[in-house]
């Protein structure tokens, strides 16, 4: 068996006239995390659905945990866990019954099922709510139960489809902790997200999807070096100050870009100390500033840069 736990080659999926995925190739080595980054509609969930055997690709092949998703669906399903964007739990059943049900369906005895359920409830801080119907759970609890449900069978590969979308910041941090722990235990993870920050924090490698195509892939560092750095966004009080401001910034060794309609100057910087340089440069030519902010590169920047590179 080779050491790729996910190996998808030339995956294309068409829904009628719409091509949701176009010759997508991804490889995820055992024990690593792939971050699948993209906006809504980029094709992330479609790829997850194909890799988790929910539906077959139109063309292309995929192996997960060593088994072909089209031919050996049951083998694949027995080795993966899936947590989607919406909690897939039975609202009528209690937390513990939800987990016991899954363990039993996977072949556990009643006693084993109960033990595994208790273990996971404890792990996800749900012991106190174990006997309550899942419909009474908060959004964050429901997502934790959902993730617990996908871990019942101790999967080799886990798919997390936007695991933190819609969560409050605290629950998001909790979810990140759980993912890091999973990885620490040797699980292979494919994670989809719209947040560069999340992919940066969790993923060993990132694949950027746009309109069903892979537009970039590499480590977070590689990707960021392509995208560039943090930038200082300056909104000028009066747009006619822009030329003077640009001249002064350039004199300080910076490379501002003007967004004319918004009277906004975007200046890439290396360190936050450069923020002071920007302020000084603007002050020297007495340019009045309406707004000033230091921003991290966002998914939008990734997209913009990639689009620009392609056009160039």
């Amino acid at each position: 068996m080779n050491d790729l736990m996910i190996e998808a080659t030339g995956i294309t999926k068409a829904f009628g006239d719409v091509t949701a995925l176009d010759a997508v190739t991804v490889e995820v080595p055992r024990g690593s995390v792939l971050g699948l980054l993209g906006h809504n509609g980029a094709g992330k969930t479609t790829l997850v659905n194909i890799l988790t055997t929910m539906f077959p690709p139109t063309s292309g092949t995929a192996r997960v945990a060593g088994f072909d998703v089209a031919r050996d669906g049951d083998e694949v399903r027995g080795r993966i866990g899936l947590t989607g964007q919406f909690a897939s739990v039975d609202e009528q059943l209690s937390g513990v019954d939800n987990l016991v049900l899954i363990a039993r369906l996977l072949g556990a005895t009643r006693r084993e099922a109960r033990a595994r359920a208790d273990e996971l409830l404890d792990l996800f801080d749900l012991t106190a709510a174990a006997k309550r119907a899942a419909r009474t759970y908060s959004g964050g609890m429901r997502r934790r139960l959902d993730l617990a449900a996908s871990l019942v069978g101790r999967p080799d590969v886990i798919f997390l489809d936007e695991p933190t979308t819609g969560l409050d910041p605290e629950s998001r941090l909790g979810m990140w902790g759980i993912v890091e722990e999973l990885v620490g235990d040797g699980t292979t993870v494919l994670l989809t997200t719209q947040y560069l920050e999340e992919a940066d924090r969790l993923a060993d490698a990132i694949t950027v999807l746009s309109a069903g195509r892979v537009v970039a892939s590499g480590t977070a560092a590689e990707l960021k070096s392509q995208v560039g750095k943090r930038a200082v966004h300056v909104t000028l009080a009066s747009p006619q100050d822009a030329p003077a401001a640009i001249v002064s910034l350039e004199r300080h060794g910076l490379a501002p870009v003007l967004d004319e309609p918004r009277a906004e100057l975007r200046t890439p910087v290396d360190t936050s100390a450069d923020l002071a340089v920007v302020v000084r440069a603007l002050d020297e030519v007495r340019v009045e500033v309406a707004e000033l902010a230091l921003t991290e590169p966002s998914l939008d920047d990734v997209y913009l840069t990639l689009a620009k590179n392609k056009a160039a």
Partner: protein
Amino acid sequence: MTTATVAPTTALPRWRGTGVTSQIAILTGRSLRSLVSDPKLVIFSVLQPLIMLLLFSQVFSGMANTGSFPAGVTYINYLMPAILVTTGIGAALQSGIGLVSDMKNGVLARLRSLPIHQGSVLVARSLSDLVRTALQLVILLVAAVVLFDFSPAGGVLGVLPAFLLALAVSWALSWIFLAIGAWVRNAESMQTIGFLAMFPLMFASSAFVPVDGLPAWLRVVATVNPLTYAVDASRNLALDLPVGNGVAAALAASALLMVVGIVAAVRGFRRSLSF
């Protein structure tokens, strides 16, 4: 989050999966458990037929004196076997609606990600709904005996097969509604389809009045209406009237519907859930 037990632990063997029979048993158990934990559902589902029983038995009780009515039969004894059948049909519709709401609440998405046969999910739902319908009909029968003086000539030995026949028809139709649910996937549409199909079928049949008493055009509809045959068979059993080949015909038609329903339901259900 302190212990590291989330991931594959090499010491523990992977569970081997389950056969279709255990899958069905486990999933049926799951649905029946929610029946026990939430008995309101059964109580409410009995309420509507009870109200119909009350209204019809009062409003139409004079019917028993008209010429087209079987001699010596009270209206409640005439009505109750039909109510068993129509309640069974209503329950069959609920089965389809239940499937759609399971699709909404995400359980089915979870079950789909497991290494189990998807048909098990449908069979389990159908079986647990069968138990629920049986419970519903028993409650209704007891209420009819206690509250409305239901005491048909066939006695227990007549009512039991009438009850079983209504149950069989309901089970067969539940597969049709499961099939519709698996394809339509929308609870509101299901309600509308159910309502549009049920009411004309119920009234243009022998359920509430003898077919002979209907206007000529409606009599034609009632004569071709399959519900008439199910109701007649169930009623003749309960009232100890000659059944002819009515029971056999009703069972044969049900079996046919069931086979069609199962094939269509499984095919519809196996389509992806995500669009």
